[in-house]
């Protein structure tokens, strides 16, 4: 048994718990619109008949779905989970809890500030908010506050770690805190792009302080952040697969050193790759697109290490539980435990999400998939399942731990996970196929005049998958609410399942625990990959695009 029995205070648990409450609430609202978009694709358009009393258009729903699921559910869950792993890993309270609370309240104020214009159809610009489409300034200010708020919580982590390091000069940083720190450092490097776009361009421009913008430059700013944004979502899920799932499955982490090494590689390689979202942009030279394609291939490598290491840890667990033969251990894994089941099924679909990602990264292959339905098909496997289903799996043990109450209706949780898995296979496969046939993304295809007959069957499957996912997400929300409100109490506080490593972490090479060389490496890579083009695009920028905000309908 791990000797890590540090007790969080009630105050700390409440602080972390509120992150998860906001996260699940955002998911519950945001996930209402995903299925309605999917059903619209199948021809069952509720936006015209039923929803239009509350929501003005398909695109207001799409913005809510994107912002609430991809930005709010993720950011609030992650900052809460990282706060837990910092405290529990370092076995000490936050250095300045008030600082973290300030960050939290900034995120809450930002969320409300951005939500108001969205709900009034004044910000139907989707979560990528490409200028020269213009949203209400409150939308941009709100998003900025959420990002800066998460930074401040990050500063709280750094100050806590700094204090811990002074008190433990030559102990390896506990894995779950190490991973939390890398995730936050990578996030703060990543959001520099979007911060520049918001603070320098979008906020002044939407307030009328600047007449025009250069949309190509703003795309470059956004996609500096856009790709590492997905690693900000992914790394906490990897944290659970590396540092919790092995223990939950009955085994140990296969390799502590490779786990740390893969996270360092993500810190290095997750940002200087943004042009793979701009392969078909007119303003970025072919050569630089090829450079970023090569760098994106290299960031596939830490994921390959993670795949092997996590599956090997599960094999260790399966054999500990009596699994025999080459693959007999698979059957011995605790598939009936909702937390483990969610993460195993998330991993299976994430395999296919990874393959789709390699396709998208492949330079001219992107000519086939860019802005088609293939892309949402892809990211519903990665952030939609690999990350979201894993986060649900984490909550299945975290909520009982925080509330000292048993999970309400474990069977419903198991059913929910299978529903998500099956619904997502139907939905995502149909989106991949209809995307390859040429269907665009972010488009209410019911209203499009260019729909050939051969898309119909796939669009129907998109709708069916959406309906199944609708049940799955609300079953999850029900289990969450039930688990918080249940009267039953657990006799003693469940212990967070932090995994041990097969080999003593102290024998992990020291260079895997030193920050400066890696940060310098990351800076150099960024200067190489983005320096010349940023200088060129900024120096030749033509700020000619005025705002367009009369194009969002009623």
């Amino acid at each position, binding site marked *: 048994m791990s000797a890590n029995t540090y007790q969080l205070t009630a105050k700390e648990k409440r602080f972390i718990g509120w992150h998860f409450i906001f996260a699940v609430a955002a998911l519950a609202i945001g996930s209402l619109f995903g299925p309605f978009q999917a059903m619209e694709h199948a021809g069952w358009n509720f936006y015209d008949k039923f929803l239009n009393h509350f929501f003005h258009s398909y695109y207001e729903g799409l913005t809510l779905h994107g912002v609430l699921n991809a930005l709010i559910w993720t950011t609030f869950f992650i900052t809460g989970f990282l706060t837990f792993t910092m405290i529990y890993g370092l076995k000490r309270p936050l250095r300045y809890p008030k600082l973290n609370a300030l960050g939290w309240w900034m995120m809450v104020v930002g969320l409300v500030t951005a939500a108001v214009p969205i709900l009034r159809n004044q910000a139907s610009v989707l979560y990528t908010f490409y200028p020269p489409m213009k949203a209400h300034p409150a939308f941009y200010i709100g998003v900025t506050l959420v990002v800066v708020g998460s930074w401040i919580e990050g500063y709280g982590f750094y100050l806590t770690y700094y204090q811990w390091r002074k008190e433990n000069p030559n102990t390896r940083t506990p894995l779950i805190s190490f991973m939390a720190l890398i995730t936050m450092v990578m996030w703060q490097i990543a959001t520099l792009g979007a911060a520049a776009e918001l603070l320098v361009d979008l906020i002044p421009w939407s307030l009328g302080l600047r007449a025009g913008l250069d949309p190509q430059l703003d795309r470059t700013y956004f996609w500096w952040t856009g790709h590492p944004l997905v690693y900000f979502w992914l790394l906490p899920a990897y944290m659970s697969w590396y540092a919790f799932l092995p223990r939950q499955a009955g085994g140990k982490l296969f390799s502590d050193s490779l786990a740390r090494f893969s996270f360092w590689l993500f810190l290095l390689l997750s940002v200087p790759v943004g042009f793979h979202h701009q392969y078909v942009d007119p303003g970025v030279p072919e050569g630089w697109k090829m450079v970023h394609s090569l760098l994106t291939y290299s960031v596939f490598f830490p994921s390959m290490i993670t795949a*092997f290491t996590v*599956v*090997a840890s599960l094999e260790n667990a399966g054999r500990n539980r009596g699994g025999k033969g080459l693959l007999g251990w698979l059957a011995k894994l605790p598939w009936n435990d909702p937390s483990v089941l969610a993460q195993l099924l998330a991993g299976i679909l994430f395999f*296919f999400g990874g393959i789709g990602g390699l396709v998208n990264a492949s330079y001219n292959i992107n000519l*086939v998939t860019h802005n088609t339905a293939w892309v949402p098909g892809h990211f519903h496997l990665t952030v939609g399942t690999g990350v979201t289903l894993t986060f649900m799996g984490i909550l299945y043990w975290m909520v009982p731990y925080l509330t000292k109450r048993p999970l309400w209706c474990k069977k419903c949780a198991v059913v929910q996970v299978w529903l998500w898995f099956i619904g997502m296979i139907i939905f995502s496969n149909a989106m991949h196929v209809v995307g390859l046939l040429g269907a665009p993304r972010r488009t209410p295809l019911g209203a499009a005049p260019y729909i050939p007959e051969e898309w119909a069957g796939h669009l129907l499957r998109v709708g069916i998958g959406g309906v199944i996912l609708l049940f799955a997400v609300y079953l999850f929300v029900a289990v969450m609410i039930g688990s918080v409100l249940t009267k039953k109490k657990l006799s003693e506080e469940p212990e967070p399942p932090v995994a041990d490593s*097969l080999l003593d972490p102290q024998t992990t090479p020291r260079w895997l625990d030193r920050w400066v060389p890696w940060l310098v490496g990351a800076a150099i890579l960024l200067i190489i990959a983005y320096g010349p083009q940023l200088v060129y695009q900024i120096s030749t920028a033509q700020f000619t695009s005025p705002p367009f905000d009369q194009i969002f309908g009623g």
Partner: protein
Amino acid sequence: MSNEQRPENENEQFEHPKGTAIIMAIFLLLIIILWGSVYLIMLSRGVTFYG
């Protein structure tokens, strides 16, 4: 893929993850098949540059 049992000098309490190797081989095959099929779709859609 080395499949014979090689002596390990460290205190190896865990023999090599053979099952993982199988799963990763399957994963590799899937990558090649699926990536390859989209690559062929790209080629089938023609050239975008004529000298």
